[in-house]
């Protein structure tokens, strides 16, 4: 039955002859394991085509969707991580197999007459494979791919006269955007694979025409391609696939944070197999001399490629073949060395742990810090995506509203030259190093470490007159306050007076209570106020009774004799907003040394930060991750005082045109529910707050 059907099909299609034609290729000297590299490359390409098409079914080119769809493939899609992993790892396997195949061809003299054309076809296939790697690297549209590919396309502009045009055509205009992605994607998934298939067919046809280069030998009989060589090829490919799947599982394809054109990525590196080219560029300088960038990026590789192209002719002269072998060995060795050098440069800090002060160490450390920062940013965006999903405007729209991502960025840009943010524990990934503080040095370095600012722990440290407390760089750094009245009071009065251990224990308890009373002013969302009511109340009493001598200088509630800033609302959103916008509004002016360096970031005169940016920073400092545009949940540290009244909510009389808070205050006792008004002026916000407290 089956035989009959086969005959029927064969008589109409000639399938038998085709199969025989394809599989009964004579192999002089018999099937060998070392003939497998070509088949493995074909198999690798086939795998890329198949996995690529399935990835295509989920990928969306375009600057709002590319990252989002790759994120979805990697983290949400059933089997998506494996699919993308195989595609990612197999691409690298292909680039490893290529030079092996080429080396083999050269060593076995398979490139010389009459196989010149096949050698050239092979070179073209190599270029196409590398171009596939380059174009694919950009498609996830993450920071790494974006900034690394940017370097590559900048190089496209180097050739004189036409360079600029070439670059614009590749990028799809002057700037990176939708067109860059649509073009790269069409190249990566359409043009290049199409070309590759075409040249591969020619390459194989040529190969069949000339047969295998080996000669028959006495020792081993000739064999047909089928079945022994097919079996060997098959086993090799199966091993390759197994290895690729294994690597893809234990080392999944990464995705960085989404590409952000305004946030340069300091650790942009091409895929590792292009690192040697990246490294080579460092050997060419920017002078007008012969060894400029154009020579390094285009002329030199072009000349090398030209040599490879001419190798079949070089082989005709005496010792030409030996020269070719040496040339290829030198190229592979040179590329290997440059790759090694690039790796050592980026990891200098790991291999030379003691050499902390060298420039190389610092550069490598910076590189690693950038990689870590990208990891943190990815972790943050991942949390956002899981919490909120990705909006239609793309991941950046979400990221730009996130107090954590933006807080870290803004802090690094604007605050970290003086302040540190030494986050610990579950927030350790948000830590930002401040300046190195040399206590003996003069100059504008070092201001308080702002991690946990306004929290009881932070305040307890501030009020600690012993080692590691107020005198440590964590608090006043290198500002004039190191010698100021606050330090003098805490160290020389509060703590100096506590002589016995018993006194100290009492002092510590008082400080703890006071710290909670002050933290109650901050209304920090991460504190357990309800569980610390006793401490807060005792602390308030201590402050009112002036147990520690605070209200001699600071105002607090009804104590209004102070001459430095009030402790009311200390470290609250409003307080921080004012402090960042214009610190001189917090510190009373008649106190000369109050603010000796902090600039106003948003005042009439200066606009170093926008109001939105300040809002983001304030939320970051308060560890409140409410997205910009959303209203933070209100925190009421002293809930127990009036629980019944606050539970009730009633409609607030609309007073949009003529707000008269004084009147409505007396009439009704409720908290306003509607807080959607945008850009409430600071003053009115404060008023409203006072109203709710009363």
């Amino acid at each position, binding site marked *: 039955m089956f035989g009959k059907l086969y005959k029927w099909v064969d008589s109409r299609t000639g399938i038998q002859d085709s199969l025989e034609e394809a599989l009964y290729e004579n192999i002089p000297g018999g099937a060998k394991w070392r003939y497998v590299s070509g088949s493995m490359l074909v198999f690798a390409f086939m795998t890329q085509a198949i996995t690529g098409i399935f990835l295509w079914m989920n990928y969306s080119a375009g600057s709002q969707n590319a990252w989002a769809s790759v994120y979805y493939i990697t983290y949400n899609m059933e089997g998506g991580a494996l699919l993308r992993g195989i595609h990612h790892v197999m691409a690298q396997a292909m680039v490893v197999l290529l030079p092996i195949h080429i080396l083999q061809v050269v060593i076995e003299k398979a490139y010389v007459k009459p196989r010149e054309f096949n050698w050239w076809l092979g070179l073209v296939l190599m270029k196409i494979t590398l171009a596939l790697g380059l174009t694919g690297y950009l498609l996830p549209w993450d920071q790494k791919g974006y900034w690394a590919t940017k370097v590559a396309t900048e190089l496209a502009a180097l050739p004189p006269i036409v360079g600029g045009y070439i670059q614009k055509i590749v990028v799809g205009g002057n700037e990176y955007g939708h067109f860059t992605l649509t073009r790269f994607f069409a190249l990566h998934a359409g043009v290049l694979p199409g070309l590759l298939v075409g040249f591969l067919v020619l390459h194989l046809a040529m190969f069949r025409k000339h047969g295998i280069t080996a000669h028959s030998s006495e020792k081993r009989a000739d064999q047909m391609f089928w079945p022994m060589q097919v079996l060997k090829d098959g086993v090799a490919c199966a091993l390759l696939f197994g290895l690729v*799947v294994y690597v893809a599982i234990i080392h999944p394809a990464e995705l960085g944070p989404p590409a952000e054109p305004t946030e340069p990525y300091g650790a942009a590196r091409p895929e590792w197999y292009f690192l040697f080219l990246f490294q080579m560029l460092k050997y060419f300088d920017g002078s007008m001399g012969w060894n400029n960038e154009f020579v390094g990026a285009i002329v030199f590789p072009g000349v090398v490629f030209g040599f490879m192209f001419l190798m079949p002719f070089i082989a005709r002269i005496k010792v030409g073949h030996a020269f070719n072998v040496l040339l290829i060995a030198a190229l592979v060795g040179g590329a290997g060395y440059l790759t090694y050098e690039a790796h050592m440069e980026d990891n200098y800090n790991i291999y030379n742990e003691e050499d902390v002060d060298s420039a190389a160490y610092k550069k490598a450390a910076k590189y690693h810090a950038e990689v870590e920062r990208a990891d943190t940013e990815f972790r943050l965006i991942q949390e956002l995506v899981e*919490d909120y*999903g990705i909006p239609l405007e793309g991941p950046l729209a979400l990221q730009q509203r996130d107090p954590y991502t933006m807080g870290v960025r803004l802090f690094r840009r604007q605050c970290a030259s003086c302040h540190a943010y030494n986050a610990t524990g579950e927030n350790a990934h948000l830590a930002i190093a401040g300046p190195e503080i040399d206590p003996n040095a003069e100059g504008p370095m070092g201001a308080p470490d702002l991690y946990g600012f306004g929290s009881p722990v932070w305040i307890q440290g501030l009020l600690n007159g012993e080692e590691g407390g107020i005198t440590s760089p964590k608090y006043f750094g290198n500002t004039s306050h190191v010698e100021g009245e606050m330090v003098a009071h805490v160290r020389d009065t509060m703590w100096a007076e506590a002589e016995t251990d018993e006194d100290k224990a009492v002092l510590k308890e008082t400080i703890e209570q006071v710290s909670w009373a002050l933290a109650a002013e901050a209304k920090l969302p991460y504190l357990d106020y309800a569980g610390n009511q006793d401490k807060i109340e005792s602390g308030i009493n201590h402050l009112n009774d002036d147990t520690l001598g605070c209200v001699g200088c600071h105002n607090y509630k009804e104590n209004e004799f102070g001459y430095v800033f009030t402790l009311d609302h200390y470290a609250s959103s409003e307080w921080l907003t004012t402090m960042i916008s214009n610190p001189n509004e917090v510190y009373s002016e008649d106190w000369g040394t109050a603010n000796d360096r902090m600039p106003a970031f948003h005042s009439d005169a200066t606009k170093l930060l926008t109001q939105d940016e300040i809002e983001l920073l304030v939320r970051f400092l308060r560890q409140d991750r409410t997205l910009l545009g959303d209203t933070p949940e209100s925190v009421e540290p002293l809930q127990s005082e009036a629980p019944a009244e606050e539970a009730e909510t009633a409609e607030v009389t609309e007073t949009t045109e003529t707000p008269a808070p004084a009147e409505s205050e007396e009439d009704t006792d409720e908290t306003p529910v509607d807080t959607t008004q945008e850009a409430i002026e600071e003053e009115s916000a404060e008023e409203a707050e006072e109203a709710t407290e009363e």
Partner: protein
Amino acid sequence: MSETKISTAKESRRGFFGSFSAWLAAAVGAVIGVGPVCVGLYTFIMEPLRKKQMPRKERDGGSSDPGFFRVASVDEIATDVPRRFTIVADKLDAWNFMKDQALGAVYLQKNEAGDISCYHTTCPHAGCSVAYEQDSNAYHCPCHNSSFNLDGSKLENGGSTNPSPRPLDTLEIKVDEATNTVFVKYEDYYTGRHDKVAK
């Protein structure tokens, strides 16, 4: 040249599957050929069948009755004349989450007694969108002439065919007396069948 090659080939072979290694080679070849396809097909088939999850912040705290959407207040519904209302809800489209998107539409009407009925706007024939027409006081589908009475039943408009396999699909509603609000349990049904089966 090629002829001699083939003739040597033919001499040396013992049939296509004449040896154990031939079978083995075929088996290995099949396995590696199929490997990448399997991974791809798995994602292609499994992903659409997977149950999708809303973003974490949207998951709980929604209405106590999942599937019911607020559509209108009772006063907005006319007596004996259907009115079209849009169903607005949060929508998840692959990686995108969008708030307040139009998911579809329903017709709402009430009778003299105040009983509210609700019809899906999708035609049970093949999924076009039916519309209420005042002139004939009936629902008409613009595609293949299906028509329906106000109570959803098929309109027998003498002579011309009515290809719809079933009456207009009714949807379950709930009225919240306190707020005077109508909630609709909005779902889609397979078209072209005699029975009403939710998708």
